[in-house]
């Protein structure tokens, strides 16, 4: 049997999620280096549009799709999804199991690692194909990298978000689809979701999907101090993102937090106002394509790491920007 790499693929109503597409792109590169290993995908539970998912996986170079189905998978549980992945690992003899670094991908990877007696590396950024597998992964919120050796088979890893751009395979494939009903124990079923409450407005999705994010940190000074930032965000059709200190002080709600323990964003433009740029925050905003820092300290890490900066009092600068935008867009 040739070598196999198994990727746990998370899907939503629009198909394969972006993190999983990034993961498949990186896994395909690894498969090619790994003596031409076969790239397999596991998709667990109900899927709205099977043919779209199959096409997406084919475009990313997947040769076999393992579709775990059955009534017990109607409601999500980390343990049931992991049981399905482990069945695939056992039937294929996979040497490497990879999941995206999303909350679910990470949870399932941890379960799979325990069940297959494997070590697990989270938030991997690069994989060296040498034996034993050696990876580089983010620690300290990405402020440091750990070179780690995975000496078990399978090796289990998750890929950090935004470290690999999605790229189609040079030659698309038509994946062979293997449908199966995994076997579960009663224990596997205990942690299924009982119900899901849709949130009235999905603030987190609005933040992580925003093209422009206006960020505020300690330098904003107070809850009221955010009024100018909210106005700027409205004028640019953007979202508000804040540093951890702002939510700790109760100035803004936690769902707006950007950072290692908040949302990780990758907008076209991030305007960081009064944010020093500590590791905790930088971990969440470093994937922004362009960063404009507004800060009274020209030496703050956020300013030196930004593409553009304005030095001075944000409470003078932001209203002036708002006025200038209004002046230029009147009658436009």
């Amino acid at each position: 049997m040739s070598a196999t790499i198994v990727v746990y693929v998370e899907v939503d109503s629009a198909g394969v999620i972006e993190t999983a597409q990034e993961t498949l792109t990186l896994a395909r590169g690894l498969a090619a280096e790994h003596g031409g290993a076969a790239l397999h995908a596991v998709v667990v539970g109900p899927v709205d549009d099977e043919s779209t998912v199959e096409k997406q996986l084919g475009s990313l170079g997947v040769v076999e799709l393992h579709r775990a189905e059955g009534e017990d998978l109607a409601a999500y549980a980390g343990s049931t999804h992991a049981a399905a992945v482990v069945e695939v690992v056992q039937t294929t003899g996979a040497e490497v199991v990879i999941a995206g670094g999303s909350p679910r991908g990470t949870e399932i990877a941890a379960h799979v690692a325990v069940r297959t007696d494997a070590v697990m590396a989270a938030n991997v950024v690069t994989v060296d194909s040498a034996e034993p597998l050696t990876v580089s992964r983010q620690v300290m919120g990405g402020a440091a990298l750990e070179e780690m050796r995975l000496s078990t088979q399978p090796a289990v890893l998750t890929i950090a978000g935004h470290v690999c751009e999605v790229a189609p395979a040079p030659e698309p494939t038509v994946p062979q689809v293997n449908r199966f009903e995994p076997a579960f124990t009663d224990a596997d079923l205990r942690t299924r979701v009982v119900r899901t409450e849709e949130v009235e407005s999905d603030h987190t999705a609005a933040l992580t999907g925003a093209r422009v994010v206006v960020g505020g940190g300690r330098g904003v000074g107070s809850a009221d101090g955010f009024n100018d930032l909210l106005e700027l965000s409205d004028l640019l059709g953007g979202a508000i993102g804040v540093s951890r200190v702002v939510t700790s002080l109760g100035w803004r709600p936690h769902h707006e937090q950007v950072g290692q323990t908040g949302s990780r964003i990758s907008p076209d433009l991030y305007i960081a106002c009064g944010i020093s740029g500590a590791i905790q925050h930088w971990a969440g905003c470093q994937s922004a394509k362009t960063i404009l820092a507004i800060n009274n300290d020209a030496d703050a890490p956020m300013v030196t790491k930004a593409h553009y900066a304005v030095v001075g009092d944000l409470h003078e600068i932001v209203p002036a920007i708002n006025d200038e935008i209004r002046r230029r867009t009147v009658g436009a």
Partner: protein
Amino acid sequence: MTNVLVCIKRVPETSGQVLLSEDGQSIDARHVGYTLSTHDECAVALATQIASATGGDATVLTVGDDEAVAQLRDAIAVGCGSAVRIEAPTQAYGPADVAAAIAEVVKARAAHGTTYDLILVGNDATDTGDFQVGVRLAYALDRPVLTGIKSAEVTGGRLIARGDGPSGSEIFELDLPAVVTVLEGGVEPRYPSIPGRMKAKRTPIEDVDAALPGEPVGSGRVKLKLPPQKPSVVQVLGEGDAAAPAVVDLLIELGVVGR
């Protein structure tokens, strides 16, 4: 009455610059100091909340050296009633070893009549970010595990927990005992009062030697390195409100104004 065990980790502060030890095997945090891992702060708050709502006890535990006692005292100061420190050579330990060491202590205590109905762990550590201690601990104890939980309560021996799923807020219900990993954002970390600090100083810390079932698995760490520092390319558009026209020129150039 729900007895809660909350497992915490002492980690380097992430507010300052990261420095590495000369051998590249650890973070040198001498100048920035140490703190309680971020999600653990919320796990401690949730532990005390559930224990006090059900008339149970909250015990805090860590695996570490003498210095980690400071973080145990921080947890006592915000409401944990007792503290256990598993003394272990943490440099040689990986996440599987930490989970195994905790599981051995939990099993040994259960054999002597002290049971923990609910075990809380931070979702991931702010330093090593392994995302697996809670899951490994649950398997070692043959308990169900929920990860990424933001809030929870216990009613009639049943745990009702809530976390964020891809399409909304997900609710789980299961019988105890269980292991739960806690994510920041649902429970406010608590800040110590003066009487809390006084109590933390007086409360004895129970020391236990780590007993692993075998040799440590280790972390697989070869070495740590810092990402290549990119030279600053910042272009200063100006100072104060006089920079506004230059900023709006940039916003137009980027195509984010007048869309």
